[in-house]
């Protein structure tokens, strides 16, 4: 899941307008951002089911550090601490929660490959409800999150502009349009296996 995380973060922006959107967007993908260098150095890996080319949701993801429950909590804290220094406690709590929301949404789609502890020690449980076994359903869930986040963001951005600077109403609508188009493009690429 990629686009769905972004959709959730856009929805959070509507509820917590003081938190910068770019920080929410980075937070919602923070686990995957940290995953990238570990993947490139073969510390974490993706096992494609059936041995074919990688596609939408057809992998067992051995992200045993970044996507373990404890690892996700540590990464949430690591993101929230500098945010607390920069933006205060409330913004930090929101951003930390958004980082951890990545683990919760991934729990829905991953195929029983998310460990409790970093490194997935033998004998410890793995989690994941495996919605990726039904790619169309997963894509529909992601689309719903993108649409919900885009509409929530549009309403909040327009209301904010109308209340505090009506001259920026057009900019608010353009930003909301960009939220929607970015989500649809990301989801399309993702479903295409790109």
């Amino acid at each position, binding site marked *: 899941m*990629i*686009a769905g995380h*972004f959709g959730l*973060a856009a929805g959070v*922006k*509507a509820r917590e*307008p*003081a*938190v*910068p*959107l*770019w920080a929410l*967007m*980075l937070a919602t*993908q923070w686990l*995957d*951002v940290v995953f*990238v260098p570990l993947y490139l150095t073969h510390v974490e890996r993706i096992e494609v089911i059936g041995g074919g080319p990688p596609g939408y949701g057809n992998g067992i993801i051995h992200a045993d550090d970044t996507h373990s429950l404890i690892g996700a909590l540590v990464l949430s804290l690591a993101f929230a601490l500098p945010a607390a220094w*920069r*933006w*205060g406690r*409330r*913004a930090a709590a929101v951003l930390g929660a958004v980082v951890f929301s990545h683990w919760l949404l991934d729990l829905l789609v991953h195929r029983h490959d998310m460990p409790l502890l970093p490194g997935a020690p033998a004998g410890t449980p793995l989690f994941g409800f495996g919605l990726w076994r039904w790619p169309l359903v997963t894509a529909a869930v992601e689309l719903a999150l993108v649409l919900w986040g885009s509409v929530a963001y549009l*309403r*909040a*951005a327009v*209301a*904010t*502009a109308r*209340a*505090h*600077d009506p001259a*920026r109403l057009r*900019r*608010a609508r*353009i*930003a909301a349009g*960009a*939220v929607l188009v*970015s989500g649809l*493009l*990301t*989801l399309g*690429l*993702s479903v295409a296996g*790109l």
Partner: protein
Amino acid sequence: MSFFVGLLLYVVVVGILDAKLPWPRPRDPQRRP
């Protein structure tokens, strides 16, 4: 690729567009849109 495209679009492009809107600042007293 979708991950990097999404990150670029949302963090950079949408982030810049969003920053030009009159949102409250993080340490401002609470006000909702």
